[in-house]
């Protein structure tokens, strides 16, 4: 089975339209919840049962996150959606926004009902102008249909939802930087605790979830948590959107059950280009440690299988590399990225990411020194776990992964001042 949850309208013409979404049962669940005045706790329970884990990268159980909010506490609470989609390799939330925006809207309204929030924001990255306009149109249509605004369908429940547009900053995908950004500030992560559930947007209790997590909610409520959990495997409930790119014939977004063998996903994506051989796979966005191709061919696309190989499923962004790629060059590009995107608040991250980049860069350009590989290990380990947010770890992990599997390639660069790729 494929495209059964977040992409369930994809086979329709102009699948983003309200009437198309409704033709697949869209907004029926919301109506049911509102007219039956379903207990909010029952919704949180159903989401817990579904085994849904946060699709933004960290994999935190969504139902559990929602249960941290005390829904009867007085005052405003917020539902925030993270459509910042900046982790290199990830391009799935863009498709949800473009092709099924109403399901995200319905999911956010249900989330609001469940935690007692009457306002929501969807943070869309600034470059996603086309998806933003589509989402805005969907908001307008939902408002006209009575799904947004005051006293929804006569239930007494109010919910208002707006889109916020970013302006280019990977760090704003980090949840507290994102909240700062909505508040009209630089996107610099906050110290945690306090967590957003207690002190979130405008200092109010807030849940923040990834686009895909929230867009999964209507189907979980319609068909039941158990149905969703059963699509996947133990510890990895449901299906998941995988964005697969690299040296393959048919890159794209595939919504398939958790636990699907990687080899099947690769086949769906048309296999390797021009008969090339698979060399390595970055299985969950560029911060996920790299896995050699042969090993990857034996793994399944779920949290435990990928973690068992020393990496992580992350956002489900799969970058497939063939044998023509130089691993030093790949790491150099990734290290440049994390250095560019560090917000500069913590010394280990600000200085460490620059150091990592400079050392990998000198190895790549034939200026590497014998002690550089140990130096990289050392710098990476001094960043990990010592920063305000996880960008520091995200910069360190790919370095550690590369040295674990491709140390000889780096050593060759240092010894021969050139690449071993293409050398007979």
């Amino acid at each position, binding site marked *: 089975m494929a495209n059964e949850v977040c992409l369930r309208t994809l086979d329709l013409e102009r699948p983003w339209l309200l009437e198309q979404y409704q033709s697949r049962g869209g907004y029926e669940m919301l109506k049911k919840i509102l007219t039956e005045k379903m207990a909010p706790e029952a919704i949180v329970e159903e989401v817990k049962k579904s085994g849904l884990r946060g699709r933004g990268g960290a994999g935190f159980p969504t139902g559990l996150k929602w249960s941290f909010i005390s829904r009867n506490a007085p005052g405003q609470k917020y539902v925030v959606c993270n459509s910042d*989609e900046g982790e290199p390799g990830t391009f799935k939330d*863009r498709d949800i926004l473009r092709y099924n925006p109403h399901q995200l809207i319905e999911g956010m309204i249900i989330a609001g009902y469940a935690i007692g929030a009457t306002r929501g924001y969807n943070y869309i990255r600034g470059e996603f102008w086309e998806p933003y306009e589509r989402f805005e149109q969907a908001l307008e249509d939902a408002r006209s249909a009575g799904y947004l605004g005051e006293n929804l369908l006569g239930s007494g429940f109010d919910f208002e939802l707006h889109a916020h547009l970013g*302006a280019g900053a990977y760090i704003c995908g980090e949840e507290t930087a994102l909240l700062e950004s909505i508040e009209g*500030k630089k996107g610099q992560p906050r110290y945690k605790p306090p967590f957003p559930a207690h002190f979130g947007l405008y200092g109010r209790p807030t849940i923040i979830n990834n686009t895909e997590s929230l867009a999964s909610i209507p189907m979980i409520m319609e068909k039941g948590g158990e149905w969703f959990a059963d699509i996947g495997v133990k510890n990895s409930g449901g299906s998941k959107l995988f964005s697969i790119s*690299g040296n393959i014939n048919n890159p794209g977004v595939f919504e398939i059950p958790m636990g699907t063998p990687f080899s099947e996903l690769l086949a769906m994506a048309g296999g390797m280009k021009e008969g090339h051989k698979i060399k390595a796979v970055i299985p969950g966005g560029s911060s996920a440690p790299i896995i050699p191709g042969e090993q990857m061919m034996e793994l399944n696309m779920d949290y435990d299988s990928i973690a068992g190989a020393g990496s992580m499923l992350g956002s489900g962004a799969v970058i497939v590399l063939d044998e023509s790629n130089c691993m030093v*060059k790949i790491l150099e590009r990734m290290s440049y990225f994390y250095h560019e995107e560090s917000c500069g608040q913590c010394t280990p991250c600000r200085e460490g990411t620059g150091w990592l980049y400079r050392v990998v860069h000198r190895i790549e350009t034939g200026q590497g020194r014998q002690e550089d590989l140990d130096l990289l290990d050392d710098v990476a380990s001094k960043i990990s776990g010592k920063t305000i947010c996880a960008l520091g770890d995200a910069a360190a992990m790919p370095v550690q992964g590369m040295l674990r599997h491709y140390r000889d390639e780096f050593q060759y660069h240092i010894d021969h001042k050139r690449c071993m790729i293409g050398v007979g």
Partner: protein
Amino acid sequence: MTTTTVKDKTEHFTPEVRAEIDRWIAKYPAEWKQSAVMGALMIVQDENGGWLTNQLMDQVAAYLDMPSIAVYEVATFYSMYELKPVGKHKICVCTNVSCMTNKSDVIVEHLEKKLGIGFGQVTEDGRFSLKEVECLGACGGAPMMQIGKQYYENLTPEIVDAILEGLE
């Protein structure tokens, strides 16, 4: 820090720009006008041919009752705000891993040769500028670029030529 509170906001911007900024302000709680700063900066940047002057940032500050310094902080933090003139068409090319392994370097070289400029530069006639950007979340169409609000995917030098010819 000083907040310039201007009584008569109509001395800032054209009515159209004010209406657009007000649409952003309306999205947020009344006491959080500052939340509209990102939207406002993008609107005035677009109006000004793609870049922000200090005067424009000061005006945004006054319009939103913010200290100017808070607006400068935002404008310098986010990569899509430009503090120097850019071309009429700002060409943003992704060179991150998925694009790189699909030969974004060929696209970059082609653009540099064709336009006679490098990253961060503007053509003499002011029509084009080139910018290197990080992953734009369209890796399925690598190599890709963005011009203005539009994404262009699965690029080859020939396709790039056709796209540029199609621009005004």
